[in-house]
């Protein structure tokens, strides 16, 4: 269901100017009612790649491996673009934090319909707490009223950034969302919980994290891919946001998980039941 768009070689212009801030008070007020949405997008090893642990145990092999936007983030971009199409949002800003190549991930979001991008460039490892702090600074700078994030990144599987950003901003959170409805100053979120679904009402501004069934992300059309090349990406560094990005977790080692031995084939249902009863003794 995920449709990565490849932007290798996309022309990126970090020198491009941010949108004018000279808009009149009336326009700013309208834009405030039609809120800005921020969508963080992470560049991760493509979900189809079978990852390999490096032989020195320092991590997984990422050199020469296909990278894509985190699938849950694609759902987040789609939801934000739909809210803009419905007239609920004024602008969708895609943000990525990481190496320079994250520009490609931002371009993918722009081709799906985001209006502009922000790249916080860092070659150092960024962990969710630092990312949440930097996103908070950007939310405040941009005066965004809604942030839609993927529920987890498929590389570190932390499932933490959205909740942490909500906490730092003092905003409510609608995690693992499968349906979002915005009306007036509040938002109704249907959440995927262990036993089924739960519905909560949040006062805006707020955070959403996306679950699989929220929507099905669109393909970027060729004209939109071309258009995306002209959209602006602002580049900054963690220090520009006043955040110390030092990791709090040190990776001691990374290993292959314990392998299961393949068992044996049985010839019939009767033999299977016999083995389960008399050999494995589990029924």
């Amino acid at each position, binding site marked *: *269901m995920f449709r990565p768009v490849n932007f290798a070689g996309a022309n990126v212009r970090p020198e491009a100017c941010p949108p004018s801030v000279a808009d009149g008070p009336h326009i700013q007020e309208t834009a405030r009612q039609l809120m800005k949405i921020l969508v963080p997008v992470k560049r991760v090893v493509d979900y189809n790649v079978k*990852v390999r*642990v490096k032989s020195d145990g320092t991590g*997984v092999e990422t050199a020469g491996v296909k990278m894509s936007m985190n699938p849950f983030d694609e759902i987040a971009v789609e939801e934000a673009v739909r809210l803009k199409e419905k007239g609920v949002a004024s602008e969708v800003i895609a943000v990525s934090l990481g190496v320079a190549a994250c520009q490609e991930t931002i371009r993918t979001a722009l081709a799906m319909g985001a209006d502009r991008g922000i790249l916080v460039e860092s070659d150092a490892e960024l*962990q*969710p*707490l630092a990312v*949440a702090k930097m996103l908070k600074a950007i939310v405040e700078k941009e005066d965004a009223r809604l942030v839609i994030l993927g529920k987890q990144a*498929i590389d*570190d*599987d*932390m*499932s*933490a950034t959205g*909740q*942490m950003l909500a*906490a730092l901003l*003092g905003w*409510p*959170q609608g995690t*693992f969302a499968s349906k979002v409805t915005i009306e007036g100053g509040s938002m109704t979120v249907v959440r*995927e*919980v*262990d*036993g*089924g*679904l*739960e*519905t*909560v*009402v*949040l*006062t805006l501004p707020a955070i959403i994290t996306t*679950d*699989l069934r929220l929507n099905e992300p669109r393909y970027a059309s060729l004209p939109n891919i071309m258009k995306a090349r002209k959209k602006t990406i602002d580049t900054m560094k963690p220090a520009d946001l006043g955040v110390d990005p030092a*990791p*709090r*977790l040190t*990776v*001691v*080692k*990374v*290993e292959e*998980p314990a392998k*299961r031995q*393949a*068992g044996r*084939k*049985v010839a*019939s*249902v*009767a033999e*299977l*039941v016999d*083995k*389960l*009863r008399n050999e*494995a003794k*589990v*029924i």
Partner: protein
Amino acid sequence: MTALVLIDHEAGAIKQPSRSAIAAAAQLGEVHALVAGSGVQAAADAAAKLPGVTKVILADAPAYANALAEPLAALLVALAPAYSHLMAATTANGKNVMPRVAALLDSQPISDIAAVVDADTFVRPIYAGNAMATVKSSDAKKVITVRAASFDPVASEGGSASIEAAPAADAPATSRWLSAELSKSERPELTAARVVVSGGRGMQSGDNFKLIDPIADKLGAAVGASRAAVDAGFVPNDFQVGQTGKIVAPELYIAIGISGAIQHLAGMKDSKVIVAINKDEEAPIFQVADYGLVADLFVALPELAAELERG
């Protein structure tokens, strides 16, 4: 060194994943349990009986009735000064609340730990369980969620902890619980079941999941599904076993018409005994199965139901 474990409870009973979280916390030192909710004295009494718990903190107030993250996180932060580790099971509730707590404490959460190495160092799966990372935290307070399938749960009975009322904490009024639509089932919960029977894309339709029912009935099993079966609309998402669904580790896992995609294996490969029934003998599921049966499931399932009936 004392750990505080946020307890998932329902109808006065402690959920099994929380009993696993207690087991993980017990490897670190003294364990206190936090029971929050409205009218939850019975759950606090049940938590006091968990072996290894020395104190139960009971936060009984309307604000905690539906486990909203905002008031629960504020409560945990208010209690945090007395603890070195704040923990919960990796459940929808734990995942929702604990990172929020961590941010408020300026701590990087350690999600979904599968082993405790020492007070600062933990093993956790990354890349859908295709690699295991050992990480060491430099934060003063560790905020942790625990992969229930990796720790044998403590028993339900045997302890005798004291129960103490939690001090009042701020309850932000920015979120409100509206309703829940929980799947009704006579069957055990997926994450707590001794036996799980799951169907995949090979089931071909939601209607065909009825073929699994008599087998699950006979074995007292929970019914699960692969993500492919959920995406195809055969069954609701809360059936999903896998990296993006539930992680299970029952004594017996029976995979029917499931090819064995990486993301599904990540959710069930810690099961004690795995059985695969699939007509494709090349299916990757057979590489992790203890017993594999290459067969058409539409023939094998009725046979299996009949064979179990005979026992």
